């Protein structure tokens, strides 16, 4: 069976983007780095198509691209007052849940995203992030506990 890149892109693009959005908290940057990761997958499709989990490969590559760009661009300065010229149209997300996820440490966000959005098992998640399976379990457990507590508090307040 030939697994065509076009089929892969169509089926995997949203899941990969959502995983990276959740991991990074930045929808616009996520579009950019996921597109670059898919382009690299396409350029090396013969190899990537044989990867045990091409979606995980794309997400790992996107996170690396993002880290690379972040390192190169950390001289950014925040502007207090935005100049909204109407060209920015971020994807809609649930602000309460996203805010709760964003408060998690980055590694916990990545574990949550890979486990819950890409449905990766513990071993594959560990391999994708370059950490041990035990660390994945610990991060997932802590992240879920924190989210549960955070969102429960919000429910009580509202």
């Amino acid at each position, binding site marked *: 069976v030939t697994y065509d890149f076009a089929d892969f892109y169509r089926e995997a693009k949203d899941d990969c983007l959502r995983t990276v959005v959740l991991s990074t908290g930045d929808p616009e940057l996520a579009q950019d780095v996921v*597109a670059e990761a898919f382009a690299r997958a396409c350029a*090396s499709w013969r190899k990537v198509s044989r990867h045990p989990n091409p979606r995980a490969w794309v997400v790992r590559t996107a996170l690396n691209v993002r880290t690379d760009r972040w390192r190169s661009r950390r001289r950014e300065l925040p502007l207090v007052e935005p100049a909204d010229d109407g060209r920015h149209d971020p994807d809609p997300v649930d602000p309460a849940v996203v805010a709760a996820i964003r408060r998690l440490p980055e590694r916990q966000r990545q574990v949550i995203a890979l486990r819950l959005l890409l449905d990766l098992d513990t071993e594959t998640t560990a391999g994708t992030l370059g950490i041990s399976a035990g660390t994945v379990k610990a991060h997932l457990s802590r992240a879920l506990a924190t989210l549960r507590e955070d969102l429960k508090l919000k429910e009580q307040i509202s």
Partner: protein
Amino acid sequence: MKDTDLTTLVRDAVRDTHMTVPESDIVGRARTLRTRRRVALGGAAGAGVAAAAFAVTALAIPAASPVSHPATLQTAAWTVAEQPSGVIDVTVRELKDPAGLQARLRADGIPASVRFSGFNPACQDYNYNPPLGKPVADGQRPPWMDDGLFTMTPGAAGPGLEINPSRLRSGEGIQIFVQFGASGNAFTLGGGPVKTSPACTG
């Protein structure tokens, strides 16, 4: 709250997030990557082409070229001013006319790409390319951060940066860009060294 409820909440949080980049753009970028790979693997002939390209860049954009236009150009959106030392001050007040700012910087001898909406996807970082698919170690600091090429300045009139063209290395340009936060109501101005190329720095 059960784990299944939490999982549903997390999934629902991003369910309306969709990849908007068309497949044709991805395939086009992949074609470029494959071409570069072939050139890189092309041996002596490829190296000759690369060397010639760098030479043309260096001749076309000399670091100390005389500036034939006024030392300061101010628009409503931004100001570019050249100090006597040759350092270029850029101040941004509004996210308008990035093409004009880009043209002015290039006229000042700086191979530049300016975008006020995300990054220029044609630009490649000048330094530091981790191998594909390999995790990168934390705590690394690219050498360009300390080389004085440019400095970000908060400034009362608006955020800005100082660019020192004499610090530009062969084949090096800069990218100025804006990143928006997830909420869309805040943004950051940034810059970084990039490899010069017709699609990136002109």
